């Protein structure tokens, strides 16, 4: 599979990302509208939908490149966004899905990745206004990559760091920062940029931390994200197990 950055420019027929947006809260929907309008030609919103049913119908009517969906919508107000992602994984595997949510719990991000992490992003709603984060998520999922809101990753890393005997304590500060970057879905280049490192240094750190954590490095960022996230979320439970 090609790296997401190489595919980042793959766009819809008119050269713009074609989107379907599903959000039941009017204020948030208007916020998304303003944020996307700001991008001008780069995005084209085919339809705004208020619930799961209308979202799936809109996708069938005119398949978009990317779906941005609220996690919680009518009819059940639980996890319709994740259901939509699962349905689309079957019916339209080429469509990227950005699930927007107010939940910081990694549970929902992991649940989103249960059916595969490729082309899936989990973004906190409050970061929709952030043009880099939003557009990056759209580009990544359109290219088959994965994104996890850094705040969700931070919560996990923070909890792990507070826990004594955590395997995270074996990592250097730098390695932990790189791991967090990996868990959000950032590319090596993006991690290098944000940490003011060379791409080479990032790669070195990744190799060493994956070895320390007994994780298999995977060049595909979407799988790498999932592995890192799973590690942060679940694999550190046995505290005394590997001291």
């Amino acid at each position, binding site marked *: 599979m090609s790296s997401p950055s190489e595919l980042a420019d793959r766009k819809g027929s008119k050269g713009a990302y074609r989107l379907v947006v599903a959000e039941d809260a009017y204020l*948030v929907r208007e916020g998304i509208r303003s944020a996307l309008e700001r991008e001008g030609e780069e995005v084209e919103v085919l339809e705004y939908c208020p619930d799961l049913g209308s979202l799936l119908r809109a996708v069938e009517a005119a398949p978009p490149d990317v779906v941005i969906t609220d996690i919680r919508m009518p009819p059940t107000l639980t996890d319709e966004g994740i259901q939509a992602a699962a349905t689309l994984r079957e019916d339209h595997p080429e469509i990227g899905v950005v699930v927007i949510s107010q939940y910081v719990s990694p*549970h929902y991000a992991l649940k989103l990745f249960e059916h595969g992490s490729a082309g899936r992003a989990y973004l906190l709603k409050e*970061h929709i*206004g952030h043009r880099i984060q939003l557009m990056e998520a759209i580009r990544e999922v359109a290219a088959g990559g994965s994104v996890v809101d850094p705040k969700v990753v931070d919560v996990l890393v923070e*909890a792990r760091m507070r*826990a*004594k005997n955590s395997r995270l304590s074996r990592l250097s500060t730098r390695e932990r920062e790189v791991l967090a970057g990996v868990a959000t879905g950032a590319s090596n280049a993006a991690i290098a940029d944000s940490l003011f490192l060379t791409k080479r240094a990032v790669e070195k750190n990744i190799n060493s931390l994956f070895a320390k954590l007994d994780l298999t490095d995977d060049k595909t960022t979407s799988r790498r994200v999932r592995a890192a996230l799973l590690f942060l979320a*679940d694999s550190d439970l046995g*505290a*005394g197990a590997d001291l």
Partner: protein
Amino acid sequence: MNSSAVSREPAFDQLDGDIELRDPAFGGGVRNADVVVIAVALAAASAAAAIVATGGVTSDPTTVATVLVANIATLAVGGLIWRRGRPASSFGNLLLAEGVLVFVSSLSGSANSGAHLIGMLGGWAAGLGATWLLLSFPGSRLGGLTWIVMGLAVATFLVGELPLMLLSPKVVGVSGIANCAGACPANAALVVDAPNAAAAFRHVEGVLQAAWGLSLLFYLSAAFAWASHARRRLLLPVFATSVPFVVAFAINAVAFDLIGAPPSSTARAIFAGARILFPLGFIAGLLFARAYAGEALAFMASKLVGRPSVATVEQLVRSVLDDPQARLVFWLPRSEQFVDRHGTPVALDPAYERRRWRAFGHGDVRVLAVVHDVVLGEDPELVTAVGAASLLALDNRRLEHDLLDSVDALRASQRRLVGAASAERRKIERDLHDGVQQKLVALRIRLELARDVAGESNGLADRLAELAADFDDALDELRAAAHGIYPPLLADEGLEAALREVVRRWHAPLDAELEDVGRLPEDRETAIYYCCLEALQNVAKHAGDDAVASLRLWRDPKAVRFSVVDNGVGFLPHPDGKGAGLTNMADRIGAVGGTLAVRSKPGEGTKILGRVTIEASDRAGDVVPV
């Protein structure tokens, strides 16, 4: 004193009625009326002795005076004992009346012919009275065959003695011991001196008197033979003391009236002894009955200690009453009827199958009734003892039931309370999430858009950046608060997901083994979730820095179970319960009908084990709607 009719539950430390230090219903205590009766009886006995001793008429004044004094004293004391022991019975009054007649009979010892005649008549009346006492005992009225005996007694006087009084110069007493020595006073009732007619009537009198005595003897024997065990207890002393007297009486009639032989001094002595003995039987009978009732009460009390069933109590009642058909019936205040222990209504009318019933309760409030053989009505002490013991035993059971009921009610209300509270918290969390949090999020998006518009590196952009940071803090705080109010994962995804999230974000080492237990009713999920959370927090707070906790959640066919175990410092569980935190946990679990066990020892860590039963209706899919 606090004893209003309405209040059935007086304060614990107040008397519930008038119980004097020496309650007259129990044991000693002498009433003024008793003193008067005793004084009168003593005076009467002294007077009788004086009359007999000074009259010079009686053949054996010492014996006669002794008999009279003993009889008057015994009858007076016996009357008082009966009046106190069985206030409802008038037998005590009959004994007192008999005492008066015996005193009157002492006038026959007077040399004055009028007084002598009155004494003779008094003696006859006392004889008839004694017959009445024996026939009616332990009641006060005659019925059925006893009228035949009483009729013979009255006939003896009317057909035998009365004509004799009118036709003979010498009047003969009925007693057999009070005959005059020779210097009898003139017969004040004499109409015509007709010796032949008198002799004939004397024979008539003798025959009738013998029939009277024998029929009485026959009646007593038959009554004793047919009596129940309970009644025999009462009859035995009376029978034992009256039979010698009645036998002596009948022999006296035959010997004196028919054969004409004056009674020998031995016969008179025996007869005197029997007469002294005779009224003692009435006292002994009552004392025996009371003693037996006391014994029965003690016996029942000893058997009722171990929380017997209603059937057991009823069986005890039958055994103690010696009445295989005895029953306990229970009053239902709402439908105002008695039911048996199976709940079948029982009609209790006075003619209920030759049975009688007696209700027991608290004050005016009926609780139960003892249905017993009609003859046991003559043994009220026993029925009272049995009824009171049954009442106590069943009261205990009822108290226990009430206690269990109130525990159930408490648990139900606790459950409602916990349920209402968690439903309310869940609603608040939803309101926050969909309301203010959503609005803040939308504002946060617009704020970010405004930052874009403001461009970079100018005063406005800096202010907006500060604002955005503050905004994020506010959102975080709000999110944490909402999560603390009710974790949305618990509502959306259930126990396993919510606990897994706790484990993920736990700030200390934590082993976890979480099974997917499916969805449970909300109250159970909430109870288990918060219980685990509290137990984990306890580990963090109290178990020590090096303690490692492990959390387990699993399910067996009947229950969802969880445990929080640590290897920390442990503690000595408080003997009568738990710390406030443990009590909270136990309350939460108890409210959904579960159990919580806490095991700890200093130095050996702490184990918290919980179990919440899952009913068939609690299977996944029956999730309580929000």
